[in-house]
């Protein structure tokens, strides 16, 4: 049997979890690209090229970086914004994990229970998950792989995600800065962002801030 690869979908009505197909998570100092374990250094440039080559690159910051639980979270949030501006990429928050009924506002939010709606609505082709609790991230990543053609990148503060097309682990402030620096380096070398023009929306606790 051939080694399973974690590739963008749409894969199946109910795709298998990558772990059940024999994909293992990277150890410290490593990352995975489509299920292949690589040195973490290799993954920075691979991720940066994927992001710069996307038409609608998008970062989904989760509650662990959206809310100021501590100073570290605040610093990470700032670094993520710098990363988004460097590409440039949209920021669409995953503020919490509640199922949204009757429906989500797909241009403003993503929810782990039906993340495909946000991907489809915004035509997102490459995305980053960061600051999302691992269980919820895996849930969303698998549903995205099942029903969309989006390339998923996980920047996980814990052990990483084999259900993402590529994943870093033990993500720290320094590692976010390093990905930003890699994006900037590639741009200086002549790699152009393929992102379609957009205006980043802003939100308060009450919802979208117009204007």
């Amino acid at each position: 049997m051939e080694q399973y690869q974690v590739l963008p979908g749409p894969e199946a009505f109910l795709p298998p979890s990558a772990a059940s197909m024999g994909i293992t998570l990277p150890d410290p100092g490593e990352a995975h690209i489509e299920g292949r374990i690589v040195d973490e250094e290799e993954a920075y440039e691979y991720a940066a090229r994927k992001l710069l080559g996307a038409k609608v690159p998008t970062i989904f910051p989760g509650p662990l970086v959206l809310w100021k639980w501590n100073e570290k979270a605040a610093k990470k949030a700032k670094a993520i914004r710098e990363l988004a501006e460097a590409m440039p990429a949209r920021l669409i928050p995953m503020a919490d994990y509640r199922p949204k009924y009757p429906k989500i506002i797909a241009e403003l939010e993503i929810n782990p229970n039906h993340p495909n709606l946000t991907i489809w609505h915004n035509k997102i082709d490459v995305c980053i998950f960061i600051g999302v609790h691992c269980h919820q991230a895996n849930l969303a990543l698998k549903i995205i792989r099942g029903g969309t053609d989006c390339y998923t990148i996980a920047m996980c503060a814990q052990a990483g995600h084999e259900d993402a097309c590529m994943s870093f682990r033990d993500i720290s402030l320094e590692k976010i800065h390093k990905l930003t620096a890699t994006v900037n380096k590639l741009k200086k070398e002549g790699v152009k962002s393929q992102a379609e023009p957009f205006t980043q929306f802003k939100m308060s606790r009450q919802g979208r801030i117009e204007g």
Partner: protein
Amino acid sequence: MNKKVEAQDRRILLSETVELGEKTNKGQTVTDPNVLFNEMEREASFLTGSEVIRAAIKRANLDVSVAYPITPQSEAAALIGELYAEGYVREYFRGESEFAVMGQCAGASFGGARVFTTTAGPGTLRAMENFPMWAGSRLPIQVCVTCRGINSPLSIQPDTLEMYYLLETGMLVWHAETAQDLYDWILGGFMVSEQPDVHLPLALCCDGFFVTHTKDTVMLQSDEYCIPAYDPYRSPVPCMDMECPPIRMMRDPFIMKSNYISYMTHASWQQEIHAAVERSRKHTLPIMNGSLIETENLDREILIVASGTAVSQGREAIRLLEEEEGIKVGLVKIKSIRPFPTEEIREATANAKTIFIPEFNIKGWLAREVKSILSNNERVIAGPHVAGGMTMPSEVIVDEIKKSLGVAGPRLESRG
């Protein structure tokens, strides 16, 4: 597909917030489990399995234990009560029933505590609804299952049928052969099940009476040391929040919403639980000496594949067969049932012509598991079996193997 994970030089990964060397309120030194398990000097003690559970919990930096010591029970829960009285366990109380105990354990674990309890036989089945709830909620609770009979007429004697019911709950399921396994795996079990990519409950099973009530020599580290505390901030789900899954789902379940997305989310949730079981493999290797199985003499054409105390009986049967009949037999000891060591067993049995699977239950669930992963599985002989608390003399295994080989001789049952 269950993929084999290579042992390499795997170590137990710790939370970055762990402060090694700090003292607990009882003056124990918080110690790197890699050092505690593998490098620290040990001394021999002669203990019952229940006393071994107490010895492990004393070094486990435990927050909460809940007990329902139905009579007759092993002493384990009562001995943990002694540890509470001495200050080694931070909270301890008696539940109203096995079902209540497991719910109370869930409450403590949702709140961020390291939790341990024990159960057996009918108690396991009465508590059963809670086990997939624990797994679905990603609660790394450890329950020691001291297996005994489950059916009427009731038996207090060992029988491993209850393990069959646990296999697809989403829990990790390990099967200890000896008191030493039990001791090492209680401590190591917390380290595996609390990893953020695993974060699942562990059913640490042993054969009741044979392990819990009999004495054995066990090598223990000094009780001046303990493992690091649980770090709930590494949990893959938020701490208890009434608005977030899984709590939100318990009062407003996905399945109440009849649409594809609701079903898909629930299915993905289930897949994630079983994915986490798979992820536990590499974390388990440092706890189980580098493999989920242990093997002896795999070059032999006949193998005994077993778990729990059936392994011990198998070892003695192998000695008898070689000394008395000149028949050479190899051994595979299965330590982890979930995750199941599929690739390891395939490799270990690759050259075997006949595989015997002795079990302490009437249905032979381990034989079914092994048959399901092997090609040419007509090689597998599901037996011998005993049940309901019967012992399994090594001679019964010897007889089964001789019968299969067509070796004539007086058989055990003829002794009356």
